[in-house]
């Protein structure tokens, strides 16, 4: 599982029949230093996540289960949750969208 930000929607007309009716998003993995990760991934989305939202992405059996169309389907990556909040050890709070992120509180020596 990983956290990522939804950066796009994908549509395809010619596709594997098992993908009909499944919504697909482009997701950019979250990194601790905030630099964009080099790779993005495509995830099926049963929840209706919007652009800019942070989501939890699962793989394999968990992803097929999340979509609920059985296990003989042509994808292996899916959104399983839309993140409300993520609290990091360094004090930062990561919100559902980047505008809700809060920096670490200033340390008093």
């Amino acid at each position, binding site marked *: *599982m*990983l*956290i990522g930000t939804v950066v796009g929607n994908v549509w395809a007309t010619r596709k594997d029949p098992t993908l009909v009716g499944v919504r697909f998003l482009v997701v950019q*993995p*979250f*990194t*601790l*230093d905030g*630099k964009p*990760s*080099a790779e993005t991934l495509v995830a099926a989305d*049963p*929840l209706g996540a919007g652009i800019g939202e942070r989501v*939890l992405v*699962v*793989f*394999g*059996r*968990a992803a097929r*289960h*999340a979509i609920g169309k059985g296990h003989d389907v042509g994808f292996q990556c899916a959104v*399983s*949750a*839309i*993140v*409300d*909040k*993520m*609290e*990091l*050890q*360094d*004090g930062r709070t*990561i919100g559902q969208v980047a505008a809700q992120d809060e920096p670490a509180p200033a340390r008093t020596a």
Partner: protein
Amino acid sequence: MFLGRVVGEVWATRKVGDLAGKRLLVVQPLDDRREPGAPKVTPVVAADPLGADLGQRVIVAFGKAARVATLGMDGDFAFEAAIVGIVDELDAPLAPAHWNEEHDPVRGAP
């Protein structure tokens, strides 16, 4: 499986039903690159049946192992990574120094 350090916790309201009640922790692999400008490894989110604390080093497993460790059984569940061990002690003399630190001083003790 890999060794990582717990660096955060995630909350979500809108989620696939069987994630309800699961504690979800953000785990950064220990073999993260520390050199300035080096590409970061993407942290993994893992279910936590053991109650790991922020800053602790943990063993993360995937797939069936993760489901069995969390629920005692395999099945259709919407997660595939779990903390299966909390590291007491690690003897890895050739590893970078931060591997052997009890709590990570760079990111702060919890």
